[in-house]
C-alpha cells in the first residue's frame, strides 16, 4: 500500500488518468454475476474493441514522448559538438 501511495505521488498525472480510465472501463466490463462456465473469447474481443481508443491514445503518447526525447537528445548532442 505504501508503495502504491509513493507511486501515485511520484506520477500523479498518469496515475490519475489510469484511475479514471480504469473506472470507466471497469463499469463497462464489470461482471454483473459470476458464471460457472467462462467463455474465454467474447470478453477478450469486447475488450480489444472497447479499448482500441485507449490503446491508440497510448501509442500516440509514446510516439510523442519519443519525439520530444529525440529532440532533447539532438539538442544536447548539438551543444556537445
Amino acid at each position: 500500500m505504501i508503495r502504491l501511495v509513493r507511486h501515485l505521488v511520484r506520477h500523479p498525472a498518469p496515475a490519475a488518468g489510469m484511475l479514471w480510465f480504469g473506472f470507466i472501463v471497469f463499469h463497462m466490463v464489470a461482471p454483473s454475476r459470476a458464471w460457472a462456465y467462462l467463455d474465454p473469447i467474447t470478453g477478450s474481443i469486447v475488450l480489444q474493441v472497447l479499448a482500441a481508443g485507449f490503446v491508440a491514445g497510448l501509442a500516440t503518447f509514446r510516439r510523442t514522448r519519443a519525439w520530444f526525447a529525440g529532440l532533447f537528445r539532438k539538442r544536447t548532442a548539438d551543444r556537445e559538438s
Partner: protein
Amino acid sequence: MVCRLVPETDGGPRVVTAPFPPPTAEVLSASFRDPSGFVFRRDGVLYRQVNRRYAEHFAAFHASGLYEALLSDGLLISHETVDVEPPRPEIAELVIRPALVPFISYPYEWCFGQLRDAALATLDIQLLAIQRGMVLKDASAFNIQFVDGRPVLIDTLSFERYRDGQPWTAYRQFCEHFLAPLLLIRDVDPWLGRLPALSADGIPLEVASRLLPLRSWVSPSSLLHVHLHARSVRKYGGRAVPEKVQRRGLSRKALVNLIQGLRHTVAALNWKAVGTEWANYVTEHGYDPGDHAEKRRLVGEMLTGIAPGAVWDLGSNTGEFSRIARATGAFVLSVDMDPVAVERNYRRVLSDAETGIHPLWVDLRNPTPDLGWANVERDSLAGRSRADVVLALALVHHLAITGNVPLPNIARWLARLAPNLVIEFVPKTDPQVGRLLVSREDVFVDYTTEGFEAAFSAEFQLARRVEVGQSGRILYQYERRED
C-alpha cells in the same frame, strides 16, 4: 494449436498410433488440438500433414512472402514439401517435413528472460504477419522453442488470412501464456513462473489479477491486459459478441496498435536477477582456486574422452561447466533449480552469442512430470530425450541432504538418463555440505564416500576416480551397467 518437434536423438516424446492412419505412421501425442493438420513420425522421420481445410491459408501464407520473411529473421523453423503418403489421405492436402530443434522445453522450465524473448518473438511474428495480410491464429508459448538461444516458432500452421475488422483471436492466450507469468515473476515472485504447469493453457487472467499487487492497477498495461481483460472475460463468459461490438470491429491500425502496445509493455519488463540462495555460487563455491582449475581440467578431460553428442549438466548453476562440455562439441542442456542462476546463464548465452547451450529451470528434486491431456501431451524431463552423458557436479549433496533422497535412488534415476555419468561427491567435511547440516540433525549415516560408491556401483561401472586437489571432493566417471 500445439505441436512439438523432437530431437534426432533417441527417446523423443511418446507417440500414439491414431485409429485411422496406416500402422507405420505414428501421430505425436501432443498434436491433436488444431484441425489444420498434425505431426506424425514414419520410419523415424518427423512430418506434418497439412489438412485440406487449411490449404487455402497455407497457400496464402506462402504466397504472401511471410514464410521467407520469418525465415530471414530467424523466427520460424524451415520446412519442405515432401512426396510422402499422408496418414489420413481423406483429409490431407500435402505433407511437409519440418526442420528439427535440438530439445523441446516448456514455458514453465524457462527463466524470465527466455519467457520474455519468446513473448517478443510471438509479437514480432504477429506484426510481420499483419504486414503481409496474415495473422497468428494462436499464441501458445508451447509453439515457441529455443534454437541456439533464439526463440523460434515451430508451428508452421499457426497462420490464417487476416480479415478486415478482425480482432486478435489469440489475444487472451497471449496474455495468459506470456504476459501474466512475466508480470507475476517480476512483481510477486520468480517461483510463480512455475504456475503455468498447473494449467492447460497458461495462467488464467482472473488468477493473475488476484495475485498481482495493488500497484499493478495503476500500470496501464497491467490494468488493461490483465485486470480489465479478466473482468471482461468473466462478464461475457457464455455470451456471444454483442452486435454493436461486432459492427464496430477492430481496424487494422487498432490491431497493430494493440500488438505494438503489447510489444512495448513486454520489452519494458525487466527483472533483477539477484537475491536467491545459489545465485552467487560461482564466486562462493568454497573451492581453492588451484583445486577449481584442476576440477575444470579433469571434467574437460573426462568429457573429451567420452566425445558425447548431448550432455545434460544437472545443477549447472550459471553454466560454467556447461561451457566446458560445449567445448567438446556436444549439445548441452544446462539445468538448474535456481531461477536467478538460470537467468544469468541465459543472459550469457545471449551476450556471447553462444550456440548449443540450452539453460533450463528445473527443480531436480521435483523434475518436470508428464503433463497435459491424459498425461501424454507434454513429456517429463526424463521422457523427452536422452543424453549421452550426465554431468552432476556439486549436486548429490543437495538431493541427498536437502531433498532427503537416498543415494541408491539418486543413482537409479541418473542411470535412467544417460549411459555415462561424470559426478562429484562432496564429503560432509566440506563447508558447502556443512551449510546444509547447520540447522538440522545429521541423519545421513550413509552419506559417506563408501556409501556413495556402494550406491553407484550397483548401477554403474567405475571408469575413473580422481580426488580433486586438497578439497576432499572426488570426481567419478561412470558407465552404466547394461546387464
